[in-house]
């Protein structure tokens, strides 16, 4: 089997208290696939990435690539690339010699090296920057150089550790697209660690959600949204409330960020409350109203079956109800998902 294969990986630090960063993770990344690891900070995603790179020893489990067990293969023999959050460029080398570093180590002939450096600087949009000192570069340019440097030796697998988190929002979004294009164009297999959903969904073919050292679910973005594997996954993705399904199998209906709707007075109660939750109506009280992305939203306090909660509800009318108003809310089926117990 090609690509990366992680089985029962455990990473434990024997520092104060001896924390377990990765608690038994299984993960496969196919050849040419881009996988994002999404999770809050401290969930163990970076530790897993460092273990794959060979920078952290595995306490238990195996990591294999193309069927070869990587235990005992040191970092520099794995043929992987790694992109850090802040680039970690060699300050004592210029841009071209930074990009050329992996090629120098691999003893690639000079002419070939120069051609490859040229090619990659071109690919990351920094043609002509070769002789620049890295200290003259902006943050975004540094990350592009770091990407070129990581890609130059044609790594079997590229690992990206929150590569854009130090940049400002606009730059982050543009660079995410650029990175995806470069990875696609070069057919590079990649694992990409981030805490930003948009970034993960922009760049990756599949996204894995990690929490507290465990990999909760791995799926393509739309599947992840449509069918979160558990309440935790749904919660992390931004599902704001959970309504008990009341079926024998248990489970909940997860209410998405736009899954709650205020019923307008004009078309009040088109449906009678029934057993189907999608048709149910709840009494709610508006506490705040806002206008976001061209649409009116309100924050309401409502009891969906597990006590009063503050939730966001969409308003279809042009004018949002004022704070203090009593309204009726209902669920928007297309923005909700069923999750298991």
């Amino acid at each position, binding site marked *: 089997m090609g690509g990366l294969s992680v089985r029962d990986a455990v990473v434990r630090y024997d520092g104060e208290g001896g924390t377990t960063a990765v608690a038994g993770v299984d993960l496969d990344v196919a050849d040419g696939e881009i996988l994002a690891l999404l999770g809050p900070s401290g969930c163990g995603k970076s530790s897993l990435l460092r273990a794959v790179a060979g920078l952290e020893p595995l306490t238990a489990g195996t990591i294999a690539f193309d069927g070869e067990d990587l235990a005992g293969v040191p970092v*520099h023999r794995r043929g992987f690339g790694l992109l850090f959050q802040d680039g970690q460029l*060699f300050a004592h080398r210029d841009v071209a010699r930074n990009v050329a570093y992996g090629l120098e180590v691999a003893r690639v002939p000079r002419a070939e090296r120069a051609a490859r450096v040229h090619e990659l600087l071109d690919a990351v949009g920094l043609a002509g920057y070769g002789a620049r000192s890295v200290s003259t570069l902006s943050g975004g340019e540094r990350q592009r150089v770091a990407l070129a440097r990581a890609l130059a030796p044609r790594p079997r697998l590229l690992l990206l550790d929150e590569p854009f988190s130090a940049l400002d929002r606009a730059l982050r979004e543009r660079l995410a697209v650029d990175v995806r294009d470069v990875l696609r164009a070069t057919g590079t297999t990649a694992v990409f660690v981030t805490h930003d959903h948009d970034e993960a969904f922009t760049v990756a073919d599949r996204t894995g959600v990690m929490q507290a050292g465990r990999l909760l679910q791995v799926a393509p973005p739309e599947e992840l949204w449509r069918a979160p594997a558990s309440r935790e996954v749904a919660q992390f993705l931004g599902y704001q409330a959970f309504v008990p399904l009341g079926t024998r199998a248990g489970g909940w209906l997860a209410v998405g960020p736009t899954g709650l709707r205020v019923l307008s007075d004009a078309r009040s109660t088109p449906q009678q409350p029934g057993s189907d939750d999608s048709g149910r109506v709840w009494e709610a009280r508006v506490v705040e109203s806002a206008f976001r992305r061209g649409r009116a939203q309100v924050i309401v306090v409502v009891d969906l079956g597990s006590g009063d909660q503050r939730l966001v509800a969409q308003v279809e009318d042009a004018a949002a109800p004022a704070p203090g108003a009593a309204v009726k809310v209902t669920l928007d089926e297309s923005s909700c998902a069923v999750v298991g117990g």
Partner: protein
Amino acid sequence: MDQDRRRLRPSACTAAGWAVAVALPLLFLGVFFAWPVVALVGRGFVSDAGGVDLTGLRDVLGSPRTWRLVGTTLGQAAAGAAGSVVLGLPVAYLLYRTRFRGRALARGAVTLPFVLPTVVVGVAFKALFQQGGLLGWAHLDETFAAVVLALVFFNVSVVVRTVGGLWERLDPRAEQAARALGASPARAFGTVTLPALTPAIASAGAVVFLFCATAFGVVLVLGGAAYGTVETEIYRRTTQFLDLRTAAVLSILQLVVVGGALLVAGRARARRERALHLETEDVAAHRWNPRSAADVAAALASLVVVGGLILTPLAVLVLRSLRTADGGWGLDNYVALGTTGGRNALVVTVWQALGTSLRTALIATVIAVVVGGLVALVVSRRPRARAARRAVGALDAVVMLPLGVSAVTVGFGFLITMDRPLGLSIDLRTSGLLVPIAQAVVAVPLVVRTVLPVLRAIDPRLREAAAVLGAPAGRVLRDVDLPIGLRSLGLAIGFAFAVSLGEFGATAFLARPDSATLPVVIFRLISRPGAQNYGMALAASVVLAVVTAAVMMVAERLRGDRASGAAGGEF
């Protein structure tokens, strides 16, 4: 083939490399420092019959004289440290927070005293304080104040460099924020800047305390007969009375004081090194502003420190070296350096002695840079295992000890251990090789303190980036640690060379079969009768000071830019 090699866990090779990097300095310091010291101190606790005799502890600790010596030692160290900090702060501000023409030269002038040979400084200050000298009216000769002034002269550069190194990278916006909130400049300094500088001040202060507590040559020359510290008492008890019992107890007392100072220094240093990571790298110093009260005050204070404290004694030394025997002015004393002195006071000419000094210092520097570089490399790592981290921390502290143990103890310890070092039938005591070795032992801590902050400032992920790109451990060292470390290596070489050039304490107690080093020759010249010899001693002191200054200037140039964001030579 390649697959097989890959299976051969190359980390075994790396581990072996680290083992050597740890073992070599430990072996060197163990054989040439710990063993001689323990052997000599141990003799003090062995009775004539061969049993353990701890009566010395009771006798010495019960003597009021001992506690008087301890009192003087602590007082002298505290006053020296406080003086260095108070005088060093304005200079650090001026030299690291403002820009002006000639700043590089001023920085060099401040560093010079630290590496000047004690013999030279003793001669210079003596000339200043004695009756008829420039400061003779103050009647400071052979007083506590004279000793402390000379100690501040030596150590103010430690404070300036260490505090300046942090200050220059301190984000000025914190202080600006305090000012915007209504704090006066003094209050902003006191509540924002000073606390931020505290770790650097504490670590520099502790190291200066250590230097002052164990100062030897200066105290002996300037203190006079009635003045005694633990260090000079160890010297007297050992060399004049062969009273090893008392010397051993005093050595242990000294070790307690030194250990305390090292502990404080180490803690403060750790805090400072953590703090360094928070700094922005390129906070530019502002141009010196004649309308800023702080800038003007700092400039005036620096003028007093640099001009009065540092340059005056040196100027007096130079002037007196130009006095001829008949009371006129001329270069007679310098011409005489090509001779062996009045009535052959010397076996070699001063120039030959300078040659010997340079050769010896070269060997000492190589040893010190190799040993100190390895220690810095090892200590700069943060191993995963807690025990290993502790061990690394201990090595960091232990390597400073040679600065705090009496040269007499080391020198006499050599006598009873180096006849058959490690059981080899080589009598090192008279081989001449012990001189550079003893000098290297003293220089190693300075090399470590110069290289270590630079290596520690390297983000470990930079090494990981190289490793992921395919560089094996050795290649990472070569491509990451070496080029960055090399910037500090120039300065480390300079420090080691200058210290070896001027080392007198240990050198004086060791055999010098080939020929004497320059400090020994200077000491010999002032100990021999004849006005010509005294004049030659002054001229030779000037030559030694000039050579030392030249070495430091070259070293500062070798240091390269400071893009790595860490200054060298900090404590």
